[in-house]
């Protein structure tokens, strides 16, 4: 799986197709039944995404001398992720008009948003400074938002009954404006959805009477979670951004069917699984971050028995970090997308704007090297002579220092000129600071790596974990160049670099489960003075009811794709806390029902164990009683996943054909003769010590002088320090 060998005699059986339709290019990742892969590219076609989809697939299949008609019938898994939905949010432009009915007095909720929304998504310095804060444009103009008199309190009691005439006026007014969807969002409807349901009945009667083609969407049906601003943003995004994509996704399915494919297209969802294109809730396929790598890392960990992983992904523009504990990721329940806070479960990642394409500039006020936050992205740097980048990037520094082979960038597809890199570093960085070129380049790398190290340490220790309990997994095209630098002195148990690091995110998309996930805010108290029997009959029964309801939603979604209940593997989660606390912890429950004392006790024991692990034994306070603040159900169905290679261990000495020669490279202030290897020609069992550079098709793995690496039988490098 390390690289796709081009052997025309071999008939490839294209099994897994994973497509990422970006703003400009549609990327394809294709894997065959032997675990070999190839990639393809085509221009994204926003009018009808299925054309770009087919062309990109064709581009990939051509590497294996296959046409789409020949390749598609073999497919067993197809995962699509597009940016059309996210673009609607970013551009605040949609093909549909949406109207909102909201609790009277709350009509400006969308416009006021939350304080956090005025800086969320901005760079660190822009978040710090008030003059760069600004509230984002609301999705829906004020004249399409109508208030309805009603009020339900935080406990679900009706304080003001629903004024049905108000509903009628509001619906008629919105229909007069020709809206395609009416979104209903009342306060605390996650606790008591009666008013929203009644509003839907009334609205649908009027829609029928007026023979309109308008749908009604309730926040309590879609996202029954606390916090009205996020809930409203999310259900509005569902109507405004996600629904219009349904036709596009159907087109893609049709295109697959037409080419002889016998496979249901699935879409990557923010909770880390894939869902069917017919799913009721599509907004969760809005993804702003690179979660594919996290999914890949989790699958990798499950297969190779690594329970706790810190995942690090360096691309051209950002450094993304995530934590996997006990083979599960953490969920962010209020992620930001397009500067809006949403109420969606999303695989939690921290992202900082520093990558290999980050611009390097000298701050004229302080005479100090600064990186980013802007970057050249896939334009690489000034040394990539075919691009029009004018500012030095991190990659230019690598080129100057001899770490990256100018003739082997992206396998030689991107011409790189080392002289240009040196000249520009001299002019833009070294001269203003009165330093030597290589000294300056080294300075840039040191600043980047120490920044990454700090960020990484903050992510791990900030959560209360010790790095020594984790293996650090490094991937992304730029990852292996920096791995040794950013893991230095952090004390990880081990540092792992899969040979297919550059394609790891796409590998992850192929490894995603077929999974639906539903969450509901609860406020179930388990008082400390209750016996376990009393608690099970009250709180336990209530939790069980919520789980059953969520389970049914999962079942309904799978039914859309003709998958029966018996094929689904359910997992049950809670967010729990001691009574009176502000923060909850996420617990996977060992049982799916809690209505008997035995079962409830197991749920609580799991919570106690989780609390002990995250904080400490001393911090436990069961005498306060417990509160369950959210219940979740995940339903997973098995799908075909990419194979992780397993090969015979060979000698510790690398084979001769892996050795490509040697060149001078600059390490920590010194030029040293450095051996160069072909990353993909190394054999399992091989060991190398630094300084060395291993060059692959889409990435370069650098080994500084004080480091060693060993390739294991799964083609994963284990990086260690010699001291």
């Amino acid at each position, binding site marked *: 799986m390390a690289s796709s060998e081009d052997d025309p005699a071999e008939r490839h059986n294209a099994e897994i197709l994973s497509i990422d339709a970006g703003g400009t290019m549609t990327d394809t990742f294709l894997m065959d039944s032997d675990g070999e892969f190839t990639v393809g590219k085509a221009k994204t076609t926003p009018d009808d995404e299925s054309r770009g989809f087919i062309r990109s697939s064709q581009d990939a299949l051509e590497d294996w001398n296959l046409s789409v008609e020949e390749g598609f019938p073999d497919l067993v898994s197809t995962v699509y992720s597009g940016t059309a939905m996210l673009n609607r949010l970013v551009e605040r432009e949609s093909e549909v008009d949406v109207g909102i009915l909201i609790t009277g007095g709350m009509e400006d909720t969308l416009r006021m948003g939350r304080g956090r929304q005025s800086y969320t998504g901005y760079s660190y310095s*822009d978040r710090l400074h008030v003059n760069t804060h600004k509230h984002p444009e609301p999705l829906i103009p004020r004249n399409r938002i109508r208030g309805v008199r009603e009020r339900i309190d935080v406990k679900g009691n009706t304080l003001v009954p629903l004024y049905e005439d108000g509903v009628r006026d509001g619906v008629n007014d919105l229909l007069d404006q020709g809206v395609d969807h009416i979104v209903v969002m009342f306060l605390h409807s996650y606790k008591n959805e009666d008013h929203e349901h009644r509003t839907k009945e009334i609205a649908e009667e009027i829609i029928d009477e007026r023979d309109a083609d308008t749908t009604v969407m309730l926040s309590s049906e879609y996202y029954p979670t606390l916090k009205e601003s996020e809930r409203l943003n999310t259900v509005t995004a569902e109507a405004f951004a996600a629904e219009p994509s349904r036709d596009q996704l159907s087109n893609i399915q049709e295109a697959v069917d037409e080419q002889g494919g016998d496979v249901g297209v699935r879409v990557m969802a923010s909770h880390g699984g894939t869902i069917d294109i017919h799913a009721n809730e599509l907004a969760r396929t809005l993804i702003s971050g690179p979660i594919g790598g996290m999914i890949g890392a989790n699958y990798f960990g499950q297969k190779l028995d690594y329970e706790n992983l810190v995942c690090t992904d360096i691309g051209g523009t950002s450094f993304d970090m995530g934590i996997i504990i006990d083979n599960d990721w953490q969920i962010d329940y209020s992620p930001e997308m397009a500067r809006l806070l949403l109420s969606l479960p999303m695989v939690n990642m921290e992202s900082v704007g520093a990558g290999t394409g980050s611009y390097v500039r000298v701050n004229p006020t302080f005479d100090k090297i600064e990186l980013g936050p802007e970057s050249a992205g896939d334009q690489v740097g000034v040394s990539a002579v075919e691009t029009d980048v004018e500012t030095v990037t991190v990659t230019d520094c690598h080129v100057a220092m001899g770490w990256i082979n100018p003739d082997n960038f992206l396998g030689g597809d991107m011409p790189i000129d080392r002289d240009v890199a040196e000249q520009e570093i001299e002019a833009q960085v070294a001269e203003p600071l009165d330093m030597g070129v290589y000294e300056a380049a080294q300075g840039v790398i040191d600043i980047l790596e120490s920044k990454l190290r700090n960020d990484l340490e903050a992510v791990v220790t900030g959560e209360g974990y010790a790095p020594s309990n984790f293996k650090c997994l490094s991937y992304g095209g730029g990852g292996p160049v920096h791995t040794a630098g950013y893991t230095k002195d952090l004390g990880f148990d081990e540092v792992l670099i899969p040979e297919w690091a550059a394609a790891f995110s796409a590998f992850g998309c192929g490894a995603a489960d077929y999974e639906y996930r539903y969450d509901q805010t609860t406020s179930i108290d388990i008082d400390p003075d209750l016996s376990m029997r009393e608690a099970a009959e009250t709180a336990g029964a209530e939790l069980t009811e919520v789980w059953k309801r969520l389970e049914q939603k999962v079942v309904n979604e799978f039914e859309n794709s003709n998958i029966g209940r018996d094929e689904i593997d359910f997992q049950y989660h809670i967010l729990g806390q001691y009574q009176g606390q502000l923060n909850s912890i996420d617990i996977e429950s060992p049982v799916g029902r809690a209505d008997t004392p035995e079962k409830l006790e197991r749920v609580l024991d799991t919570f106690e164990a989780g609390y002990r692990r995250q904080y400490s034994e001393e911090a436990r306070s069961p005498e306060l009683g417990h509160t369950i603040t959210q219940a979740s159900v995940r339903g997973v169905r098995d799908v075909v996943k990419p194979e992780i290679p397993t090969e015979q261990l060979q000698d510790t000495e690398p084979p001769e054909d892996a050795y490509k020669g040697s060149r001078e490279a600059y390490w920590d202030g010194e030029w040293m003769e450095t051996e160069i290897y072909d990353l993909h020609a190394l054999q399992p069992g091989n060991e190398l010590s630094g300084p060395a550079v291993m060059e692959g098709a889409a990435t370069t793995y650098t080994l500084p002088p004080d480091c060693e690496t060993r390739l294991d039988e799964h083609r994963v490098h284990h990086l260690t320090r010699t001291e």
Partner: protein
Amino acid sequence: MPESYPREHIEDLVDDNLEWNQLHDMMSDYKDADRFQKVRDVLQERVDWDDPIIIPYAEHLYVVAKPDDRWVIKCDCGHEFCEHDENWKADALINVRDSEEEYLEIYPEDMHPHPDYMELREFFCPGCNTLLEVTNVMPGYPLIHEFEPDIETFYNEWIEEPIPTA
């Protein structure tokens, strides 16, 4: 980051005609090296008098150079207030709102401060009657001299350029 923005861009900045994302980019970036002189140039072109502007002082107000090496605070209508290191407010026309009745001219009912605790002082230019500043202070509070620019340090050490002279 441009070392320098085009003149039209700076005019739009002065007129508040930039889109938010343009403004945001300007704020987030390193400051363009010639920003001050460009802004000064735009402002100079817009006033009807010839005294060179040394610095913009407040809305409508500038510190300008006079022939006898004096620096004075001047309104864009041409009215001259005082020396640059004196409090221009002492030379302004001042309207004080310190009664219920006067507050109600500009505030909705029950939405204004109590006149016994807080008065509103409005400062107008004697030349053009433009409202230049409003302060909301306790009755009896002195006229505070809020801003005395250190022109020498600014020109000599910050931007390292000669101070304009008449």
